[in-house]
């Protein structure tokens, strides 16, 4: 039996396979090392970093929803300095491609982070998060206005030679317009989708469950919205796509790739089944073999072609 070529090329970024773990769901790469060696992954994406440390929002930060969950973590993170000093050296040892997710409250924030993150480390790319629904200024506001999204990308682009991934918010009327904006801002890759804005109310206390009232909806529930958006953007914009949103099985991953994703990212599924990313890697390989493809690249965007 011939081996299937799982290597994936995203703009300049080479991955050993197309399976990535999503920002905010995989800590800083160590938490899941008790289950398997993270170097088996195509890449890992770390929790969103901001220039200064953040405590994030108060608890409760989580609420379950049908086939999904809400979170309002609010970008709790150690800040840029501590990331560089304490986390990056440990990430270096994981021997896997690292994507650093950066979030800001102003254009300067993005500029600062882009210029501070080293270009010659395990960092394979920066994921520019313009879509976090859990913070008040900045965050999603950048991700729902095409002009501001373009600006964020332009500024970030100026301050680093690392490949830039623009992470899109699904909370928009026209995802294609947003994708075109970040493309013209200089994004090399598009990742999508971040969480949908949602909320739940506790019928006993009659208050919102989340201390922050609203939160980001993730998990299988949002999969059909994510597949649709990947499909639309693949058709309209000529950049590689990292697809995510509710992927919990290799079948889901295949669906995203057929829709046009060159790689996939696994988020909420890690919480339910820590082995999901590895099961997805072998499921993708097996699917290609069974269907007679020699390389995983052959299935990208097939749903547009047949």
């Amino acid at each position: 039996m011939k081996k299937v070529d799982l290597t994936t090329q995203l703009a300049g970024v080479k991955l050993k396979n197309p399976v990535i773990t999503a920002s905010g769901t995989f800590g800083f790469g160590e938490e899941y090392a008790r289950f398997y060696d993270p170097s088996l992954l195509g890449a890992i994406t770390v929790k969103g970093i901001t220039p200064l440390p953040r405590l994030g929002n108060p608890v409760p930060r989580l609420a379950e929803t049908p086939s999904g969950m809400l979170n309002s973590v609010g970008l709790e993170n150690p800040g840029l300095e501590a990331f560089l000093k304490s986390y990056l050296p440990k990430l270096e040892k994981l021997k896997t491609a690292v994507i650093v997710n950066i979030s800001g409250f102003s254009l300067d924030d993005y500029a600062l982070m882009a210029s501070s993150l080293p270009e010659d480390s395990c960092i394979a790319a920066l994921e520019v998060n313009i879509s976090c629904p859990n913070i008040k200024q900045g965050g999603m506001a950048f991700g729902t206005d095409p002009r501001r999204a373009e600006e964020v990308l332009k500024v970030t682009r100026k301050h680093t030679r690392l490949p830039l991934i623009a992470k899109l918010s699904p909370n928009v009327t026209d995802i294609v317009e947003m994708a075109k904006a970040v493309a013209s801002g200089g994004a090399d890759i598009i990742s999508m989708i971040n969480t949908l804005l949602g909320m739940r109310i506790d019928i006993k206390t009659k208050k919102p469950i989340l201390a922050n009232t609203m939160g980001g909806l993730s998990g299988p529930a949002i999969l059909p919205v994510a597949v649709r958006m990947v499909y639309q953007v693949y058709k309209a914009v000529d950049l590689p796509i990292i697809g995510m949103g509710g992927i919990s099985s290799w079948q889901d991953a295949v669906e995203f790739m057929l829709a046009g994703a060159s790689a996939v990212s696994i988020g909420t599924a890690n919480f339910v089944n820590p082995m999901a990313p590895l099961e997805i890697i072998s499921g993708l390989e097996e699917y290609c073999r069974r269907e007679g493809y020699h390389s995983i690249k052959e299935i990208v965007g097939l749903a547009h072609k047949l």
Partner: protein
Amino acid sequence: MIREETVLQNQLLDPEARIYKLVLKGKVAETARPGQFVHLKVSPTLDPLLRRPISIAGINRQRGEITLYYRVAGRGTELLAGVREKQTLNLIGPLGNGFTMPSGGELLLLAGGIGIFPLFSLLEALDRTKVKLKLLWGAENRRFLQAVGLKTLEQMGVDYEVSTLDGSMGRQGLITALLESYLQERNYTIGTQSLKFPGDPWTKKDWDPTGEERSPLRAVACGPQGMLKAVTAICLQKGVPIEVSLEERMACGVGACLGCVCTVRGADGALARKRVCQDGPVFDGREVVWDEEG
């Protein structure tokens, strides 16, 4: 860490409070420590999506069995109640840090309602020839106490006192009253000053009765947040070190999602977050900041 364990027993203990006893056979028992928990998958489908955290209430290493007790609180535990013997359950565990195990002195256990469950495993594991034990347990009423654990406590020969909200057993009222009179009766010359954090940095010594010990008495508490806050305040004020087992809504259970944090005051006096699942669920009472503004 991800395991399929076999259900040996899933038995309704108290039909009114809907409390079940669940005995599982598998590998968790090999390494579990008192105060840790398991993260259970309650449905093979995508809904309910998340796992449910349940404390380990009994560990039988020889037989490879753990015992859990759970209250039917919502959809997830409702599904759990339907699980039958011989089925398997998918779980991650053991997770969390567990209680500090003292090797001497006196340990005061403080339980609020179903907060008794994780304390069972501590009771079981302590060397009671060396550690003096006292348990104070506050609950709704006599029926609950009897259904859930009085028999177990008596079989174990544990010295306990109870309080009930309706006065149907023991002292009427809250566990705080029980605690205050207990400390008063004993008239401990324990801590001469109240314990706080920072300025009173946590040292292992507090828990080491063989060292130069300020307090031969230490406390461990588990129960609703309001009760934990109240008993912690009393204990610290009397100079009694206390460990509390916290609960928070969880997604990953392994420290990756930052969903389950509590607020602590670090050694530098600044507020910080810790993850209940990974850095806890057991915390030093002095570091916990109960109200974020605090």
